[in-house]
C-alpha cells in the first residue's frame, strides 16, 4: 500500500480545505536571487497535506508557471524536462481548449496570456478578515523585495448554500487518491469492476508516485524538484448568468418535465446535488447531504441516458462506466477540482447587470495534456466519444457550431445550431444554444512539493541567464 509523503505535498493537492474565502496573487520575477530568497521564506508558511490538529484561519500555497521557472533561471536540463503543454502556457493552447471568440486570449484580462505571470500565491481563509490580514502581510513583504512584483490579484468566495452562479450545489465528486489518508467515499475512485470502486493510484495526480499504469509519471529532473509536485490549471471563467437562466427558462416552456427537471438534466444533478442517476424524478435532500450516497452511482443501468443524459455535465466530466472497456478509457483522465466562485450573485429574475461573476476553476493532475486538456477538448467541447455528434457541454461549450479549421464548417452552414439532447420518449432538445461561459484568463502552473520549493530556492540562478 502506497503512503504519500504528506508533510511534503502542498495541502490543496490532496484535500479540499473547505475554507470559503480565497485570494490569488500573481507575481512577476525580475530578480531570480531575490525571488529565491523569498521562496525559502514563504515555504515555511505553505500549508501542507500533513493532517491538521485544527483548521487554520488562513493558509498559503504557491505555484509557478513555466515562464516563472525560467525567470528563476533554473538549469536548462530541468526546464527542458517539463512537458510541452506546460512550457507553451495556456494561451498557446487556445485552439485545443476552445478558447476562441469571446474566450480568446486576446480578450483575456492582462497580464494573463503573457509570459509576465510567474508565480501564483493562493490564500485560503476562513473569513474575509483572515483573508485580508494574510493578504496584507504578504503584500507588505513583497513590497520590500526589489525584483518581485504583484501583477494581478483576484478574490473568490463561496456563495450562499455552496452553490455556484448558475444555481447548482457544487464540489461533490472528487477522485479518491490511494495513500492520501483521506477516507474514500463510494463512487469517488476508479471503476474496479463488479460495481465496486477503488482509489486512484496517486501518480495520476502527484509526481513521484506510481500511476494507473504502475509506473512513475514523466517528471522533470531532478526528483528533488518534481517528487510530491503536481500541475495546476487555473482558469477564470466568467458565467453569463442572465443568459443561462433565459436559455433554461425558454427551453423549459416546451419541456413537459418543467424547469427544475430540465435544469437537472443539463447537469446530471438536481440543484441541491442529488444525482439524477440515483433519483431521476425528484431531488432528495437526504441523499444530497449524505456523502456516502451523493456520489455513489454508476451509469451501467442507464446506457441511453434516460435517467441522466449522456451529455449531462457531470456525466461528461466523469463518464464512469458508460464508456466501454471497464473504465480503461476513463481512469487516466480524472481531475482534482479546487475552484471557488467569484463575484456577486445576480438576484433571481434580474437582467444582466454587466458585472463580472463566475468561477475560478482550478484542477490538479500529473499530466495537463492527458487530463485537463483531454477532458476539455474531447469530453466537454466535443461529442464523438459519447456518440453525441457535434454536441458540446451546454455550460462550458463554445457553442460556435463550427469545427476548427474546417472549411465551410461541418456539413451544413456555418450557423450549425448547437443543441443538447435530453433522452426520453420522445426526446427533448435544448437549443439553439449560445455560449454562457467565457474564459477571462488563465495559466498552467507547477505546484512543487516542499522538497521542490527547497530545490527552487537553492537552484535559482544556476542556469544560463
Amino acid at each position, binding site marked *: 500500500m502506497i503512503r504519500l509523503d504528506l508533510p511534503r505535498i502542498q495541502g490543496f493537492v490532496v484535500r479540499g480545505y473547505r475554507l470559503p474565502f480565497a485570494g490569488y496573487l500573481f507575481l512577476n520575477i525580475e530578480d531570480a536571487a531575490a525571488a529565491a530568497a523569498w521562496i525559502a521564506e514563504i515555504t515555511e508558511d505553505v500549508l501542507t497535506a500533513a493532517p491538521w490538529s485544527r483548521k487554520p484561519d488562513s493558509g498559503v500555497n504557491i505555484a509557478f508557471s513555466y515562464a516563472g521557472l525560467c525567470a528563476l533561471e533554473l538549469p536548462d536540463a530541468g526546464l527542458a524536462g517539463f512537458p510541452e503543454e506546460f512550457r507553451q502556457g495556456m494561451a498557446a493552447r487556445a485552439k485545443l481548449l476552445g478558447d476562441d471568440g469571446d474566450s480568446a486570449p486576446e480578450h483575456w484580462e492582462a497580464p494573463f496570456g503573457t509570459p509576465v505571470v510567474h508565480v501564483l500565491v493562493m490564500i485560503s481563509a476562513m473569513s474575509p478578515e483572515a483573508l485580508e490580514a494574510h493578504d496584507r502581510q504578504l503584500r507588505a513583504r513583497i513590497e520590500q523585495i526589489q525584483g518581485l512584483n504583484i501583477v494581478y490579484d483576484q478574490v473568490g468566495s463561496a456563495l450562499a448554500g455552496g452553490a455556484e452562479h448558475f444555481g447548482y450545489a457544487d464540489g461533490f465528486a472528487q477522485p479518491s487518491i490511494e495513500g492520501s489518508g483521506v477516507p474514500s467515499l463510494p463512487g469517488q475512485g476508479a471503476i474496479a469492476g463488479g460495481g465496486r470502486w477503488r482509489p486512484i493510484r496517486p501518480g495520476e495526480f502527484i509526481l513521484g508516485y506510481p500511476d494507473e499504469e504502475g509506473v512513475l509519471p514523466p517528471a522533470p529532473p531532478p526528483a528533488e524538484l518534481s517528487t510530491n509536485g503536481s500541475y495546476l490549471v487555473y482558469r477564470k471563467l466568467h458565467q453569463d448568468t442572465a443568459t443561462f437562466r433565459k436559455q433554461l427558462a425558454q427551453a423549459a416552456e416546451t419541456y413537459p418535465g418543467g424547469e427544475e427537471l430540465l435544469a437537472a438534466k443539463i447537469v446530471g444533478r438536481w440543484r441541491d446535488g442529488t444525482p439524477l442517476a440515483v433519483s431521476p424524478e425528484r431531488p432528495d435532500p437526504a441523499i444530497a447531504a449524505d456523502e456516502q450516497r451523493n456520489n455513489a452511482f454508476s451509469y451501467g443501468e442507464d446506457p441511453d441516458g434516460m435517467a441522466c443524459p449522456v451529455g449531462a455535465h457531470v456525466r461528461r466530466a466523469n463518464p464512469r462506466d458508460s464508456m466501454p472497456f471497464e473504465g480503461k478509457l476513463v481512469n487516466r483522465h480524472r481531475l482534482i477540482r479546487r475552484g471557488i466562485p467569484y463575484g456577486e450573485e445576480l438576484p433571481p429574475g434580474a437582467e444582466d447587470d454587466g458585472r463580472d461573476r463566475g468561477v475560478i476553476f482550478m484542477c490538479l493532475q500529473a499530466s495537463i495534456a492527458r487530463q485537463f486538456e483531454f477532458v476539455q477538448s474531447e469530453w466537454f467541447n466535443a461529442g464523438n466519444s459519447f456518440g453525441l455528434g457535434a454536441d458540446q457541454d451546454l455550460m462550458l461549450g463554445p457553442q460556435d457550431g463550427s469545427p476548427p479549421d474546417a472549411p465551410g464548417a461541418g*456539413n451544413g452552414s456555418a450557423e450549425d445550431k448547437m443543441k443538447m439532447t435530453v433522452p426520453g420518449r420522445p426526446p427533448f432538445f435544448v437549443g*439553439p444554444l449560445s455560449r454562457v461561459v467565457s474564459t477571462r484568463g488563465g495559466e498552467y502552473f507547477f505546484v512543487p512539493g516542499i522538497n521542490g520549493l527547497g530545490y527552487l530556492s537553492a537552484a535559482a540562478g544556476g542556469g544560463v541567464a
Partner: protein
Amino acid sequence: MNHRRNTCGQAYALSVLTPIRDGQEAPLVRCLNDLPEGTGSPLASVAGTHIARWVVIGDVVYEGAGQRRPDHLSAGRLLFTSNFDGPLEPYLQRLCTGLAEVADRIWGHCSGYPGRADPGAFAAYLRSHQLECSLFFAAYGGRTVEQVEHSLTTRRDVIDFALRAQRMGAAELQSAFREVFAA
C-alpha cells in the same frame, strides 16, 4: 495483388509508393505543401475519395542498438494513400482526369512516371507501385462519399427541424415537415 485485402465493404484502400528522382525531394515537399487545402484540394476533384494523403518518406528510420543492420533507401519515396469508393480501375481513371495537371506536378518528381497523357500508362504506373494491405479497417465501409455527405446533411436538417418543431402545433408541424423534407 489480392484486391480483397484492400477492401472493406465497398471501400478500397490504395497505397502507392513511388521513388523520388534524385534531388527532387525538397521541391516535391514544397509542391505538396503549396497545394490548396480543404474543398480546394485537388483531391476534391477525384470523385469517390473519402480521405487521402501524400507523404514524403526521405529515408527509413533506424531503431538503434537492437537493429544490427541499418537500412537506407537508395531514393526517397512518395507515399500516396487513398480510401475511396471502389473498385480500383475506375478510380485510377478518375485520379488521372480529376487531378489533371496536378498529377504531373506531383508524380513528375518520381522516377518512371509516364505522365497523364495516356491514362492507361498512368494507371499501370500506380498499379506497379501498389502495396497490398495486410489489414484494412473502414468504420463505414458500406457507404460511398455521396451517401456519407447526403446523410450528414439529412441528419443536420433533422436536428434543425426537431429544434423548431418543439414549438409547433400538429397542423403547423406537418405542413412545415412537408415543406422542409419535400414529403
